[in-house]
C-alpha cells in the first residue's frame, strides 16, 4: 500500500504540524515500520510544493520527539518505536473513529445516503 501524505494550506493547523501529525500516526500504526527511510526534505518539499524550511521544521520536530532519527548523509529513518500491539490497535481505532466521525457529519450535512458516502470512500481508497 502506498503511503500518502496530505497537507492543506487553508487549515488553521500549520502545514509543518500537519506533516508531523501524519508521520506520527503512520509510525504509531506501524504502516511506517522502524528503519524505513523517509524522503529527503528537498524531495518532499518539491512533491508537496512547500518551502524546504516547512518540511525541515516537521522533520526536526519528529526528530526531537524521537519518532525519526537523522543519519547524516544517509537520510532520515523511522526510529525503533516500542509500542505494545494493544497500544497500536487503540491508537489506530481512535484515529479512524475521529476521521469517520468527521466524514459522517459532513455526509449527513450534505444529505447524502450511506451507500453514496461509502461509494465515495471506496473510490478514494482505490485512488492511491
Amino acid at each position, binding site marked *: *500500500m502506498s503511503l500518502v501524505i496530505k497537507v492543506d494550506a487553508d487549515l488553521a493547523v500549520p502545514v509543518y504540524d500537519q506533516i508531523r501529525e501524519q508521520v506520527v500516526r503512520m509510525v504509531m500504526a506501524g504502516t511506517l515500520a522502524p528503519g524505513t527511510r*523517509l524522503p529527503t526534505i528537498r*524531495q518532499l518539499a518539491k*512533491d508537496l510544493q512547500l518551502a524546504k524550511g516547512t518540511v525541515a521544521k516537521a522533520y526536526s520536530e519528529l526528530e526531537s520527539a524521537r519518532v525519526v532519527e537523522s543519519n547524516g548523509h544517509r537520510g532520515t529513518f523511522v526510529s525503533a518505536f516500542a509500542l505494545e500491539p494493544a497500544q497500536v490497535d487503540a491508537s489506530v481505532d481512535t484515529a479512524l473513529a475521529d476521521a469517520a466521525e468527521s466524514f459522517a457529519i459532513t455526509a449527513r450535512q450534505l444529505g447524502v445516503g450511506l451507500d453514496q458516502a461509502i461509494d465515495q470512500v471506496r473510490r478514494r481508497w*482505490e485512488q492511491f
Partner: protein
Amino acid sequence: MSGPRRSRLFDSLVRLRWILPFVALTPFFVLVAAGDMSDGSAESAETGWVPILLAVWFFILVVLAVTVLMLNLSGHDPDAEDAAAELVADPLGRMLLARWLQRSRHHRFVGGLVGFILGVGLIRNGNSVPALIGLMAGIALGGALAEIHLVRGDQTSTRLAELRVRRVAEYVPLVDRLALAAVAVGAAAVVVLAQIIGQSGPTSTWVAAALVVVATVLGMQRLVVQRRRPALNPALAQADDLLRSLAASQGFARPGIALSMILLAQAVVNLGTASATSNGVEQSTVAPVVQLALWLAGAFWYWMSRRERSRSLAVSFATQRQSTSA
C-alpha cells in the same frame, strides 16, 4: 492525445520516413551505374535518356529529403503512440508516455541535426570527427533539453504526496551507472598518463570535456528522478516510474555516455600523437586501437537494443508496484 487530427496518409508517410530515402536511392544508383556504362560505348546515343532520368530522379530525391526533414521537424510521431501502447496499459499513462516519447525524439532529432550541421562547418583537412561529435552532442543536448520544462504547480490548497524515497539507482540501469563510472576512471587514467609522459594541453581539454559531459548526465539524472510528483494511483505511478527511468537512461544518458567516450577517444589519440612527436618516434598502434575501441563502445551505447530494454523496464516497474500495493 491532444492536437490536430492527422490523415492516415500523413501517418503512413511519417512511419515510412526512414525507409523512403533508401528505396528512392536504389534506382538512383542503378541510373548512375547505367550512365557510367553507357559512356563512350556505341549505344550511348540510344541511352541518352539516362542523364535526363538521372536529373529527374535527383530532383525527386531532393524533394524526398526535404519532405523527410519537414516530417521529422513537424514533431508528429505516430510510432510513439504504438510504442507507448506496448509498454503501458493505463490509458492516461499511455498518453503521458507517448507525449514524452514524441517530445524526446523530436528534441533529439532537431539537436542531432543542428549539431551535425555545426560539426560539418568545423571540419578541417577531411577530419570528420567534429561532425560526429556535433551529432552526438546535439542528440544528448536535445534529449536533456526535452527534460527541462516547467511542471505547472497544483493551484489548490490541498496537496498530496507519496511518502517514498526516489533514488537515482532505482531508475537508472546498473549498466549505465557502470559506463559513467568507467568513463570517469578512464579520464583519470588518461590524466595520470599525460602527467607521466609530460604532455597536457589539448589532451586535458578533451578529458575535461568528457568529464563535463559525465557530470552533466549525472546532474540531469538527479533532476529527472527528483522532479515533482504528486500522489498518483498505482497505474499512473507505474507509468511515471517508467517514464523517469526511460528519460534518465535512453533520453539523454546513453547519447551522453557515447559522447563522453568519443571525447575520451580523442584525448587518447591526442596523447599518443603528442607522445610520439615529442619523443621523435613513430606513433604506436596502442592509441588508435584504444580510440577505435572507445568509438565502438560509444556506438554500442547509442544503438543498444532500446525497445527490448524499455519492455523489460516496464515489466520490472509493474512487478515492483504490484508488490508495493499487495
